[in-house]
């Protein structure tokens, strides 16, 4: 573990708390709770550190790690090759991407290829934003209408765009998409199949020496059952990975 962190004694963790059940704000209005927060608490305890989880906009977390503002980004980050250029990841879960729409009068699509000509609300800086932009280029190349991508600062903005009809579809990681549909009082429904399963990674500053100790802590939590218990508590146990998949920088795309 880096000496500076050991003497500081507190792990500062950033999460974008608009992504339930992985990270969201508790009913007290300011505490960040969720699967990532609980997992990071257990990891910090295993490392003998205290923890402070702070709320941040998603697209500011990686720059925040690079500038030393945060020690760990635990915010449903998909481990991608592009992001690995700036930060290191410890993979700890797997999740796909899902579309959701308004329950009544929503737009039906089955795969991302059907996105041409539609308006989709995403969170800024997410893999969904990148995927939707890539699909838009494919649509244009095929002579079809482009995808209108509305990137919001947080997931709440994207959901509001869906409620108000600014966007026809929401596009997020499967666990939060499913959770939001469940909590929407029948306003939203999932459309199409979850796809593009990819590893989630805990992000740490590049070459900070933090990846290895965090990896060891995740493996320890898997062994003593805490890992499974936390995932089950937040209903995301379907994304559990075996110990062999807890890689450092294991991006598949």
């Amino acid at each position, binding site marked *: 573990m880096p000496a500076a962190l050991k003497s500081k004694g507190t792990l500062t963790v950033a999460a974008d708390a608009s992504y339930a059940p992985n990270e969201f704000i508790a009913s007290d209005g300011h505490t960040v709770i969720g699967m990532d927060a609980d997992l990071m608490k257990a990891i910090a305890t295993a490392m003998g550190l205290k923890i402070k989880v702070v709320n941040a906009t998603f697209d500011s977390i990686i*720059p925040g790690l690079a500038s030393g503002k945060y020690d760990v980004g635990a915010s449903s980050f998909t481990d991608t090759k592009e992001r690995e250029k700036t930060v290191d990841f410890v993979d700890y879960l797997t999740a796909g991407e899902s579309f959701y729409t308004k329950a009544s009068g929503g737009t039906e699509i089955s795969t991302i290829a059907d996105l041409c000509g539609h308006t989709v609300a995403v969170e800024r800086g997410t893999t969904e934003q990148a995927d939707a932009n890539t699909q838009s280029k494919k649509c244009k190349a095929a002579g079809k209408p482009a995808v209108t991508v509305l990137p919001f600062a947080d997931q709440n903005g994207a959901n509001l765009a869906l409620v*108000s009809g600014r966007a026809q579809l929401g596009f997020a990681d499967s666990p939060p998409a499913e959770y939001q549909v469940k909590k929407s009082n029948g306003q939203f429904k999932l459309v199409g199949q979850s796809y593009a399963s990819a590893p989630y990674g805990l992000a740490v500053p590049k070459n900070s020496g933090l990846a290895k100790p965090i990896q060891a802590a995740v493996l320890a939590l898997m062994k003593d059952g805490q890992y499974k218990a936390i995932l089950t508590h937040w209903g995301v146990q379907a994304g559990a990975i075996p110990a062999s998949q807890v890689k450092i920088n294991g991006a598949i795309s």
Partner: protein
Amino acid sequence: MSTSELSEQRAGRPDEIEAVPVRHPGRWIASFVVVVIAASIVRSVITNPRFQWHTVGHYLFDPRILHGVRITIELTVLSMIIGILLGVLLAVMRLSPNPLISGSSWLYIWFFRGTPLLVQLLFWNFISALFPRIDLGIPFGPSFIHANANTLIPGFVAALLGFGLNEGAYMAEIVRAGMLSVGEGQTEAAQSLGMGRLAIMRLIVLPQAMRVIIPPTGNETISMLKNTSLVLVIASVFDLLFEASQIYSAQFNEIPLLIVVSIWYLALTSVLYVGQYFIERRYGRGFSRQQRVTMRARWLGSRGNPPVTDTG
């Protein structure tokens, strides 16, 4: 001839004055300190690699950034036009003797100054959550235009409504202050000539009020230029800051992109400064000779030269 002989020759007359300019050692010391501090700031900004000046240079004229600059200018100009027209209307209403007219103007100003601009912007953008369909027509009577709120009010229009209507409330107070600054004698004289209320406003009061209205309006315009960056929250208007955020959220180079954005806002603000100077000079005609100073004299300091006369 020695000095003593000279003074004897001039006996009875006071000595020639040996005028020595007052020394200002303090000024020299202060200037030195300022120059040293400025030089060290410039040096640290230029040499600190964390500013990533090469990235700044790479994106400064990126087509996406230039598109953002254009949208920012459009938003600022259109919002200010809406704001100024609305402001004049509201100010005239506010000064109306009819309590219903002045009361409704007061209510408008109270509402739009009393809620945050950001919140108003969100309301306009998500208006269809409140009114899914908008019908325009005779109140309680037939309507002529029925449209889906999102079609009628796309993101850009939502932004204009948010900025323009909010600005109208602030401009109303500025215009009202300007009107009140024109002496009552002016109105009375116009009335004695048989002019009506609106003619007095248009021909007598407003032209004279302009001198007081212009400087705060310039201030509002500069403020508006930067406030337009709030469209970030509605995610569909690609202004300068939003275009930059699109780039940095994919490339993780937040700081250099924010520097690019700052450079552009500073450049645009500088243009507004020049514009404000010329408009101020025009409406200050005949009021003060201080106004008749050229741009060059203002920048270089007038140094007590006689006022430069020009054709302004």
